[in-house]
């Protein structure tokens, strides 16, 4: 082992690099770093799982309108462990969105995105957009009715942007309706372009985190604590202390993923039929708030809200939350605004889930209309009797 190290060291002079690495891995973090800080590693693991299962799926998946559905069925029913691989990929995509949002909330509440770590946060927002992009493009690939029509609905919206709207939509879907060309484009984005972007951005994101260290809860106009001060406060280094916590979270996350994949396999519906729209088509849960919003406001406004939200996120440390306080208790307005916005978005999502369904609530049947408003299903005397 030592001989192998020496062989490389003689040629690349690795010793100083190794020392810098060790220094960054072992410098004590602030004391408040707890289990909530392990979510980033869990995210990294999930991304790795998606990459692995994704590559495996690529071996048997055929990205053409004619063959896609049959190839997914073959993966589910004929390839050894194919169903498990696909289900893991499917559940992984849900877990990643949830984990990314939780991680973002954690960073927000601890003020970790403030100076000097704004760049890390902005890359993080970019990563969130990339993750949502993965979900959006991957959704179409099974080419069943839900996938096809969900994509039709989701790609309708950009067309309402004046001037550039229609051409943007046509560029995106490769024509004037969702078809084979759309599948080709979404596939390339999903398996090549987005992973490329993801790896670059994750690399940068991780480097910055290690390089700058975990933020303290002090004000930004106070000097950052030195490693010695963190050590004196009782803070622990990333390696090996926090790394062990990360590993435990990783094992548990893997356990959850494998359990879900084993007991709740991914579904495949009926093959896509561009001539027949099924009732009640909705997008995936993480797009429901945007989808539902479009039912209440003019399309032009609704379409611009999600990009606006991402812009607001990017501007958080730059223009919106510029107070030097990191501690959430000392930035009440921003924290309240964040919570209120989150609750509103959650509410929209719930309305989106309930809309266009009929359910029994406490013994009465309610039909929730397109806007999510409940109507009691009952009968009154009919008119027109002569």
């Amino acid at each position, binding site marked *: 082992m030592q001989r192998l190290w020496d062989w490389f060291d003689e040629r690349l002079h690795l010793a100083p690099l190794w020392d810098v690495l*060790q220094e960054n891995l072992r410098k004590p973090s602030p004391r408040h770093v707890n289990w909530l800080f392990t979510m980033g590693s869990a995210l990294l693991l999930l991304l790795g799982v998606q990459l*692995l299962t994704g590559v*495996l799926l690529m*071996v048997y998946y055929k990205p053409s309108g004619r063959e896609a559905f049959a190839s997914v069925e073959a993966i589910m029913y004929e*390839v050894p462990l194919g169903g498990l691989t696909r289900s893991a990929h499917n559940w992984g995509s849900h877990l990643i969105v949830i984990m990314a949002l939780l991680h973002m909330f954690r960073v927000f509440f601890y003020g970790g995105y403030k100076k000097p770590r704004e760049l890390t946060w902005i890359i993080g927002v970019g990563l969130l957009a990339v993750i949502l992009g993965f979900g959006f493009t991957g959704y179409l690939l099974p080419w069943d009715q839900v996938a096809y029509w969900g994509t039709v609905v989701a790609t309708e919206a950009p067309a309402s942007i004046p001037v550039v709207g229609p051409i943007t939509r046509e560029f995106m879907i490769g024509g004037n309706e969702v078809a084979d060309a759309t599948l080709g484009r979404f596939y390339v984005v999903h398996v090549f372009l987005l992973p490329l972007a993801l790896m670059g951005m994750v690399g940068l994101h991780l480097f910055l985190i290690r390089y700058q260290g975990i933020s303290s809860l002090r004000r930004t106009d106070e000097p950052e604590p030195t490693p010695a001060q963190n050590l004196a406060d009782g803070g622990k280094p990333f390696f090996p202390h926090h790394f062990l916590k990360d590993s435990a979270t990783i*094992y548990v996350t893997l356990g959850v993923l494998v359990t879900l994949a084993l007991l709740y396999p991914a579904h495949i519906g009926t093959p896509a039929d561009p001539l027949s729209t099924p009732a009640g088509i909705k997008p995936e849960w993480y797009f429901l708030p945007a989808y539902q919003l479009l039912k209440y406001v003019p399309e032009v406004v609704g379409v611009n809200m999600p990009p606006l939200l991402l812009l607001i996120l990017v501007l958080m440390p730059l223009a919106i939350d510029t107070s030097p306080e990191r501690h959430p208790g000392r930035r009440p307005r921003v924290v309240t605004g964040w919570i209120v916005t989150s609750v509103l978005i959650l509410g929209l999502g719930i309305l989106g889930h309930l809309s266009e369904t009929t359910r029994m609530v406490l013994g009465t049947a309610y039909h929730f209309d397109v806007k999510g408003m409940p109507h009691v299903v009952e009968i009154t005397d009919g008119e027109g009797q002569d």
Partner: protein
Amino acid sequence: MSDSPPSGPTRRWVNALLGLGVVGTITGFAGSAFAYLWPAPGGAGSEFLVGKDGLLRAEDIGPDGSVVGRSRLGKILVVRRRDGLVGLTATCTHLGCTVAWNGANGQVECPCHGARYNLHGEVLNGPAREPLTIVSVTVEPDGIRVRPQLQG
């Protein structure tokens, strides 16, 4: 490398088992991927000669004409001679290309490196060294049945 902390028996056990856990997890994933990628059997093949568009018919082979199809015995070349149909394995014994019948000189030729055989499968010209195998072909209502030649 940095100096390692002093180790005792418990420490060694924990380290070893942790390492085992990591190796186990990685093996689990790698093994699953391996099973997933295991090549599927190509399919048993049919007793009847099958071409690009389905079962081949003997009527389609003209005098001194030939056809190449797939079967349970692999790729087979069938040639119609004056006294009936002759069947041979169609995979050149040199490097595996598919051979073809040349009616003009009455030889089976390989387009890749020029190997030539006669209708008994014997090598007339290298670079092939081993002969082609004769197979028994019979014309039936369902198609051309291909069977191994029984040795006398």
